[in-house]
């Protein structure tokens, strides 16, 4: 188990290193940020001075190494636009994104689990059909559309919930729901098909033959097996959730990393872009590592190697 964790950890680090190169190159490929910072009438000399001041005149390799060296200790340089250390922006935004993601994840799981399991247990009944509808809607309605409709109706016309900001628990509801929407549908389908397969297995039959109560057969014997495919996809779903967050945070004016990324990109503030992408990637990698450990915990065949 320890070897497995160490191995996966090293893999994640390699992936992050590669990503840092990509980020470094892409951030410089989006155009010259100085156009956005300097006034319209800036002279050639102003440009040269600014370039030197920001270290943009040094060789790329040098820029990259100093970027990575400092990124490791949390120093992402200064935001070109805000003229503040990027780390301060991250520190302000990250907690909001994490809280929103956690909220969305909890909501998704709380909906997906009972729905997926009950759909399988009561296959072909009303519960199952309702679950199918949720799945189809969840995977076919684009997030931006759902967000806009929710803002328009629930927040706008009906005025039930705040349309933006992160001031109260109520303000989590719309963005959290929008963000979790896609995940609910996917997880629910995975659980349903996993449960259907497992409920038909010989070991579930044997559990019933042993006299195990039906609720225990379903929620213990069967579910732990049906979790394996769900956990396999959990990392991917988390990554999707992170990407979706950019749209959701923008629409709902949520002061998180997604918003920061959006603002960073539109103003070519590449220290911010680099920092956001790397932080997000590190989080996704950490979540995936956690997911892999969970996977090994659930499935002894992984834990002990085949």
């Amino acid at each position, binding site marked *: 188990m320890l070897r497995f964790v160490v191995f996966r950890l090293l893999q994640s680090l390699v992936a992050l290193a590669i990503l840092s190169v990509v980020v470094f190159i892409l951030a410089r490929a989006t155009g010259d940020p100085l156009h956005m910072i300097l006034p319209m009438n800036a002279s050639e000399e102003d440009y040269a001075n600014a370039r030197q001041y920001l270290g943009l005149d040094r060789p790329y390799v040098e820029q990259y190494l100093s970027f990575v060296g400092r990124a490791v200790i949390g120093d992402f340089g200064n935001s070109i636009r805000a003229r503040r250390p990027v780390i301060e922006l991250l520190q302000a935004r990250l907690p909001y994104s994490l809280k929103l993601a956690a909220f969305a994840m909890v909501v998704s799981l709380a909906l997906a689990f009972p729905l997926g399991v009950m759909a399988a247990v009561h296959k072909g009944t009303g519960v199952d059909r309702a679950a199918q509808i949720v799945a189809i809607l969840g995977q076919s309605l684009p997030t931006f559309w759902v967000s806009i409709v929710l803002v328009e109706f629930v927040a706008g016309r009906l005025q039930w919930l705040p349309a933006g900001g992160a001031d109260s628990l109520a303000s989590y509801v719309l963005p959290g729901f929008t963000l979790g929407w896609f995940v609910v549908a996917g997880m629910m389908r995975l659980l349903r098909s996993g449960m259907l397969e497992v409920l038909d297995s010989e*070991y579930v*039959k*044997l559990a019933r033959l*042993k*006299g195990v109560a039906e609720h225990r057969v379903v929620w213990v014997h069967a579910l732990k*097996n049906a979790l*394996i495919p769900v956990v396999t996809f959990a990392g991917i779903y988390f990554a999707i959730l992170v990407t979706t967050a950019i749209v959701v945070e923008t629409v709902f004016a949520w002061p998180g990393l997604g918003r920061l990324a959006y603002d960073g990109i539109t103003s070519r503030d590449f220290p911010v872009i680099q920092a956001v992408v790397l932080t997000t990637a590190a989080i996704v990698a950490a979540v995936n590592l956690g997911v892999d450990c969970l996977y090994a915990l659930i*499935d002894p065949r992984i834990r*002990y190697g085949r």
Partner: protein
Amino acid sequence: MSSVIDVRDLRTHIVTRWGTIKAVDGVSFALGEAETLGLVGESGSGKSMTCLSLVRLVPRPAARIVGGEVRLDGEDLLAKSDAEMQQIRGRKVAMILQDPMSSLNPVFSIGMQMREPLAMYHRLRGAAVTARAAELLAAVRIPSPETRLRAFPHQLSGGMRQRVVGAMAIAGPPRLLIADEPTTSLDLTIQAQYLGLLKELQQRHRFAMIFVTHNLGIVARTCDRVAVMYAGRIVEIGPVRRIFTEPAHPYTRALLESIPRFGARRERLTAIAGQPPDLASLGAGCAFAPRCPAAFERCATAPSETAIAPGHATRCWLHARA
């Protein structure tokens, strides 16, 4: 001797796209303590469905037990509530399934799966339940049982896993043990060991046993009586010796003839001329008629059961009285 299990006119139907199948169509038999019934017949003849009907675990919602009685020590299991039935499963009537590779849950330890029935049946907890689980594993001759309790199914061989299932089955200990082709997927030496083990456990706990198999050699060695199933019915039932020496039903005879004479290598039922019956489109007559070399006019109606000797009965017009 009073019966441990007394099955009367058991009927289980399955609704399929092609119509209703009478998978179990009026099955009756009785078994006493420490007695073993061999249940034989081609695949699809309703052996497994009969076994599952006894514990009321037929595949729902397609299959349904539509009639009959299943008396365990005199009490009709078909009249029990679901909750009562759950108390009987495993504890009073245990079952061993065909494929040891898939009948243990891959994500739980052997220990968890062994402790579970003990906690349910005997309210054992803590160290007592672990000690008892290890005892049961030792009883099915699993070496170093304490260590095995910590193992997971994929770490054990097929023979070993089937022993674990056997150990769970005797946790009650049960009054009736149903073994549905328990050795079919084990190799020959392991098969023989396992059968020996089951017989030994039966001597110790005196449970009645229903042994489903394709293998007539196994029947000859392990069973007291034999029931031959064809198309959902028992077409012949009797003491092992009589079935092997004086088979009455043409189907039983065909089965016996299909055993290769030479050595005991392949004792499986080999092909009998003609197609196995399609249960969805059975006519009114004897189901074996299309393949029966002795078929005659009367066979266009279904024969009822006729006793031909004490404990020996068959469903065939050749043996019907007047």
